[in-house]
């Protein structure tokens, strides 16, 4: 059974532990600007919304990549960027309708969530269970995928 990140914004306090953990795990530094998960703040309503890649089936990023640099991780189902192959053309960053694969000017490559290879540090770091790593079919993922379906051009 594949697992996926389940995000419950109602539980998020905006502490940014997830961003710190992500940055440390993936970039080796505590720098929220380098995190692959982002917490968005809705000031008017005092709400916080953590947001990252849902590893969608359509894999727009992977489809659009002209050099085969994004591959499916067979163990986790995540779509991973292969750094040695990515040329930094950024086509994936405009193709992904969720905006969850982004260009990193420092490395000249794109970055996205890879579920930390099966042990997502954002979920481990979250003190309020706003981010959990659970069986894929138990999450709100289907809803998001339904929405993704509206932008699905390929049909098949």
């Amino acid at each position, binding site marked *: 059974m594949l697992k996926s990140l389940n*995000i*419950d*914004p*109602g539980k998020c306090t905006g502490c940014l532990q997830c961003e710190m953990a992500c940055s440390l795990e993936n970039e080796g530094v505590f720098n929220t600007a380098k995190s692959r998960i*982002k917490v*968005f703040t*809705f000031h008017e309503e005092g*709400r916080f*919304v953590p*947001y990252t890649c849902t590893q969608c089936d359509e894999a*727009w990023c992977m*489809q*659009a990549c*002209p*050099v*085969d640099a994004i591959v499916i991780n067979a163990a986790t189902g995540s779509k991973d960027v292969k750094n040695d*192959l990515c*040329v*930094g*053309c*950024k*086509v994936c*960053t*405009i*193709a*992904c*309708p*969720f*905006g*969850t*694969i*982004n*260009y*990193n*000017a420092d490395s*000249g490559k794109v970055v996205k969530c890879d579920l930390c290879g099966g042990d997502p540090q954002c979920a481990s770091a979250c003190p309020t269970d706003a981010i959990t790593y659970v069986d894929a079919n138990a999450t*709100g993922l289907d*809803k*998001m995928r339904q*929405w993704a379906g*509206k*932008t699905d*051009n*390929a*049909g*098949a």
Partner: protein
Amino acid sequence: MIYVVVGAGPAGVVAAEQLRKLDPLANIMIIGSEPEPPYSRMAIPYYLTEKIDESGTYLRKADQHYSLRDITIIQQRVTKIDTAMNTVITESGEKYRYDKLLLATGASPSVPPVPGIDLPGVHNCWTLEDAREIVRLARPGASVLLMGAGFIGCIILESLVLRDVKLTVVEMENRMVPRMMNEVSGNMIKRWCEQKGVDVHTSTRADSIESAGGGKLKVNLNGGQSVEADLVITATGVKSNMQFAIDSGLHSDQGILVNSFLQTSNEDVYAAGDVCQGKDFSTGEYTVQAIQPTAVEHAKVAAGNMVRGHRSEHIGNVNMNVLDTLGLVSASFGLWMGAEGGDSSELVNEDAYRYLNLQFKDDVLVGASSLGLTQHVGVLRGLIQSETPLGVWKDRLMKDPMRIMEAYLACSQAQVATA
């Protein structure tokens, strides 16, 4: 079934893979005209800067990728389709029969009608072979004149500057990347390039090119000025590779004409990618977009329609582009120039080289262009293609377009909207 795919670029390769997925027993063949493994033109700029070697441009990296999928690759130029006999004929006279044929022959650079354009030292930058020539000629310190500052011109521009050449750019329009950026942002890119030492002439045309002796060229610009160069690179637009298809009786306009199933005027022949005049999502009109994501989506839809039982309609592609000009990233989506009767909002920060322009029709985002933004730009596509009503967020975005990500989360993601 026998499927023949003409063209070994992204559209051809993705289509062949999709055909294999849908029809495990079929006979699948790709016929490409270049003497290289299938590669990506998108990657050529990175080859020019030596960020990757030639194999880094290949569309698929595994040695056995095609043979493992039982996809035959033939390096030949197709010169004719015999639609009565369901056969394609190559330059060397070989014939290949098909049940369904996909034309994914891409595009080629258009040659500007400038006297001297055929002199040695004037090159396109389109194929891997062109790139090898440019690597050879664009030595550090060489003078290079680039004709055209469109998408392709700009992407090569970056590579040339990184090769330490002395670069002059000539563009006929009044700004850089005129098909992607408006006057404000197109001129911000120009200013950015000038600050990096590139000599940019907009609203300027090369009238003629002549030999200046000693292997040098002299490019005469309108207005009387002339520029000496060791190398002239032309990037003045592309045109679909379709003459053979026209000669074979298929209907065409800017590209090969297709219906909403990407089927040409012959029922057994389909088209995809830069050669295909497919539907534009935003306008509903049929145009040649000539961009990578569209090529791939065409390929998947066309391949599906070529296989019995997988018919699906092509709903159209959002036109979009992303470009990195010497580190300044720009992107455009959909009706970035605006919709009739629509509204727009704009953020301009000339000093920081940041720009965002949103175009609305009622409360739906229909187009956008950006400069200096690299985070979450994909949601612009998402909002355009899902035609998400923005409700109260429309007014907020009219006041501050930079709140686009909040608007997206609030309007598109059920988990947020219902809370």
